Every structure is written in structure tokens, then in C-alpha cells.
């Protein structure tokens, strides 16, 4: 029987199930869930209210920054300066609030600092045409240096009249859920919506897939790229403010090396460093898995020296898994 052109064009190639099974994010999610179930039976400490509260709050900070990093990585770039930006924003909040300004001013100042970092990164990358790796590597150094200059390398632990509010914001709970986790959930939902339902979201995927094609079809590539780095810096700034409230003090070594954990979380969650793929949910799941691995080692009494080995292996396994699957597809 001849198949009509209509049938061919309207034919759906993938069922929902096969689509799900083809996602790296799904398998990583499954791994995280299985690890949680295993830990629940192997220890009596994992599934306690306290431990779960700590685990979820701990990964929220990495998760928030990982959402911004996912945006950058989808567009085919990388942002190595997030750890330093987080520190700079935290220091700015601390200094502004200890000078007696209210919480809102402290947050606004921190976010302005973060946006400034993002704009400098974005303009150098999009308009001057420098490689993201180099620009953000430079910014990693510059932003942390700025934090040192501003604070004179002194710890900030007094936050003026609004101190209690700040500590509540970062360290408190709403309906029993840690505030940073709520911030993460809200941001993940917004990011997921933007990726799927807005032209801007489509365009960052297009830029990551084939930048030349995006330019030729009239996508405002440069403007979007600046926006991408601003968003990444902004997520680092938000995490910085929340972390300040959680820790109750800021030092200039806050967030040192964090960019690598964030990139690891993003990659484990299914973002491709070559650009063009990634999901908000993946960033969250990747961050969660790293924290679950860390937590389980502690609970099982394994030396924390092993953490790096486990997290590192998982990065490679998650990506290798994806490679094997695409090999099979191309056969």
C-alpha cells in the first residue's frame, strides 16, 4: 500500500516513552533516586528530616548557579567566573548592609555588581569576539581581586539593622523548606519555561547549534550572548546573597573552585559543552546528584577524600553513557 505524503509528514517518530529513555537527564535522575532509596535502607540517618533538609539546602546554591551556567553552555559558551562573581556579590551585600543600609539596598547592590560582571564578560565575548574561556578566566581573577580590594580581605559578619532579615532569607525556611531551595525551584521553573516557550530560549539553542546559521537568519546573536552572560552572573549573585544569609559571615575565599562543581553539575545533568543541548531540570538533578554522593560518603563513613573520585567518575560515566547511546543510534 502506498503511504501518502500527508501520512509521512504527520507521522510521529518518537513516542513519549522512547523520548524519555533517550534523555541523559532521565537516567541521571533515576541514578539519584536509586541512590536515595539505597541510602534509606543502608543507613538510618539519611531519610531523617534533618539530613534531607541539609542535603536539599546544600545543593540549592550549586543548583541556582548551574541554571545560569546551563544557559551559557546551551549557547555554546562557558563561564569560569561564577565562583568569583558569587564572592564579589556576597562581599558587596555584606559591606553595604554593615554600613547600615537596609536589606533591599544590599541585595540591589549585589545584583548590580553581578550584572556589571556579566555585561563586561558578554561584551568582550559577543562584540570584541574573544573566546569565552579566556574572558571568563580573566574575570575569575578580576572579580575575586575586586572582592579583596573592597573588603580589604576582612571577614564581614555584622550586617547592620537588617541582619536578622538577611539571616532569615538565606538560612531560614518557608513552610519547612529551606529558602534557597525555594529560590532554586522558582528559578528552575522560570528557566524551563523560557527554554521551551520563548523566542529567546529558541535562539540560545540555535546559537549553540550553529551560530553562523543564527546570524544568517537574522537572530540578534550579539545581544543574546550578552544577555546569556548577564544571566549567568545574576544567578551567581543571587546565590551569593543567599549564601551570605546562610553562613552569617562572608570571607573572600567564598565560592573558590565553585565554577568546577557547577560545570560538573551541568554536564552530569545532560548539557553538552559543545553547545546546543541542556535543560534546567538537568542542572538541578546534576547538582542534587553531586550532593547525594557527598552526603552518602559521609553517612557511610567513607573518607571524604574519596568525594572527588566519585564525582569525577560520575561526570565521565554520565557522558560516556550518552556517547554509547548515540553510537547505537547511528548504527
Amino acid at each position, binding site marked *: 500500500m502506498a503511504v501518502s*505524503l*500527508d501520512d*509521512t*509528514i*504527520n*507521522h*510521529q*517518530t518518537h513516542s513519549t516513552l522512547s523520548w524519555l529513555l533517550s534523555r541523559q537527564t532521565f537516567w541521571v535522575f533515576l541514578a539519584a533516586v536509586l541512590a536515595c532509596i539505597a541510602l534509606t535502607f543502608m543507613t538510618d540517618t539519611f531519610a531523617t528530616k534533618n539530613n534531607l533538609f541539609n542535603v536539599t539546602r546544600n545543593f540549592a546554591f550549586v543548583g541556582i548557579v548551574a541554571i545560569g551556567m546551563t544557559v551559557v553552555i546551551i549557547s555554546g559558551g562557558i563561564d569560569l567566573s561564577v565562583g568569583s562573581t558569587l564572592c564579589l556579590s556576597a562581599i558587596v551585600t555584606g559591606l553595604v548592609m554593615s554600613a547600615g543600609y537596609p536589606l533591599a539596598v544590599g541585595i540591589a547592590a549585589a545584583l548590580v555588581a553581578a550584572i556589571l560582571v556579566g555585561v563586561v564578560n558578554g561584551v568582550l565575548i559577543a562584540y570584541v569576539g574573544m573566546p569565552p574561556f579566556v574572558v571568563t578566566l580573566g574575570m575569575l581573577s578580576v572579580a575575586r581581586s575586586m572582592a579583596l580590594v573592597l573588603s580589604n580581605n576582612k571577614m564581614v559578619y555584622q550586617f547592620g539593622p537588617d541582619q536578622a532579615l538577611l539571616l532569615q532569607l538565606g538560612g531560614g525556611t518557608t513552610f519547612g523548606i529551606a529558602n534557597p531551595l525555594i529560590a532554586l525551584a522558582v528559578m528552575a521553573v522560570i528557566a524551563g519555561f523560557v527554554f*521551551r*516557550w*520563548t*523566542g529567546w530560549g*529558541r*535562539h540560545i*539553542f*540555535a546559537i*549553540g*547549534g*550553529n551560530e*553562523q*546559521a*543564527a546570524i*544568517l*537568519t*537574522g*537572530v540578534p546573536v550579539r545581544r543574546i550572548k550578552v544577555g546569556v552572560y548577564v544571566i549567568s552572573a545574576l544567578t551567581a549573585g543571587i546565590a551569593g546573597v543567599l549564601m551570605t544569609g546562610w553562613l552569617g559571615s562572608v570571607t573572600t575565599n567564598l565560592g573558590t573552585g565553585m565554577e568546577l562543581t557547577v560545570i560538573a553539575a551541568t554536564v552530569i545533568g545532560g548539557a553538552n559543552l559543545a553547545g*546546543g*543541548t541542556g535543560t534546567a531540570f538537568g542542572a538541578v538533578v546534576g547538582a542534587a546528584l553531586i550532593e547525594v554522593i557527598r552526603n552518602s560518603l559521609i553517612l557511610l563513613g567513607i573518607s571524604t577524600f574519596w568525594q572527588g573520585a566519585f564525582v569525577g567518575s560520575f561526570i565521565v560515566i554520565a557522558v560516556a553513557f550518552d556517547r554509547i547511546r548515540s553510537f547505537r543510534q547511528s548504527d
Partner: protein
Amino acid sequence: MSVLELKEISKHFGAIQALNDVSLTIEPGGVVGLMGDNGAGKSTLVKIIAGNFPPSHGSMRVQDREVHFHKPVEARESGIEVVYQDLALCNNLTAAANVFLGRELRRGVWPFRILDYATMYKRAGDLFKELKSETRPRDLVKQMSGGQRQAVAIARTRLSDARIVLMDEPTAAISVRQVAEVLNLIRRLRDQGIAVILISHRMPDVFSVCDKIVVLRRGTKVADKQISDSSPEEVTALITGALERA
């Protein structure tokens, strides 16, 4: 009435004369094969028509109206669409997303404007049907054959009310069956009254779909004639310079 008229177009880059007094007229629904050796000036001519850069001398008329393009988007607004050699497609997106790239359809009221996937899938499907191509709007472009990729790139030009489609080597590096598919796509455009300029090295393709042939050599037009009055042998001689002019 002509859809595109070039009058004594010249272009030089510093001391290099890339094009020398090239005149050309294209009728609606005409398919013109633009041939010439590497460096003969084909790409320069196409880039001038597509608005990538202005000519040094000469004038250009679209639908009997004088035009001066400074940016590709101005050419596009005048109804000139380009299908690029590397197709300018994003492999990680679906066929429909590629067709609508940069011109996405949205629905809802600002600030609640969201992408209108249903309409985009449907319209992309309609365009593929119109081109008689077995291309599924929801499939990722990376899974597609060369012919299907061409259909996606050509469907993109059908979104706007294009009157002239420039195609740069659309049949390079694809299989024989897919070449036939692409040539059919070109005929489909012609049937809808769209003029096509086909840049190609492949003699059989040019002789099977074009009704006119233009040969450039060292920036000068050396032939501009009906395909029925020419032959592959003559064109080869014109390209290489064995035959001075025809």
C-alpha cells in the same frame, strides 16, 4: 516585466576587479544557471544581489524599482532569499524550528507571548507538502538526509513572499537520488512563479532545470543565452576560456 535587473554591475576589492560590467535580467519563474570556474565572480555577484555588500558601480532593480542594499535583511525585505551552501541549519533543532528560525510565530498578549508550536508545525508541514518532500516538521535536522535538509532550507524561503531565490551549490555533496529531489524542489519554486538563480558546478543539473544560462569568466559575463541554444560542451569551453564568448 523583469523580476530582477542588473545593469553594468562592477565590484572591485582594492586593486582586484572581481566583477566587470555584468548585466543580467531575470523573468518571474525563470531559472537561471550561473556557472563559472572558482574565482570567476559567481559568489561576488550573489553576495551583491543578497545585500552582503553594495556594488562599486552599476544599478540593480527589483520588480522595476531601483534598490540599494546595505544589509542582507534589506534584500530579504525586497523578496530576495538565499539558500546557503552550508544550508545554515541548526542540527540540534527540529525541522519546523529551523524553518521559523528568527521569525518564530508567537501567540498570547504581551508580556505573556509564547511560541505557537502548533501553528509552526502545521505551517512547516504544509510547506513540505507544497514542496512534495517527505520531511517531518518534528524531526531533528541532524537525523535528516541531504535532500530533506535542502527542503528545510528552501521551505524557509517560502515563509516570506520571496520572488527570487538564490541557491548556492545546492547539489554539492549529496546522493544521486537526493539531487533529483532537490531539482524537483527547484521546479516547484518555478511553478509558483518564483525566479531561481542556481549556482552550480554540475552541468547535468543546470541543463535539467534551468531555462537560461549565464557564464562568468574572470569577472566578465561571457555568455547569457537560452539553455536550448547551448550545450554542455559549449559551456565547458566558455568556462575554461577555450571559447571566448557566445
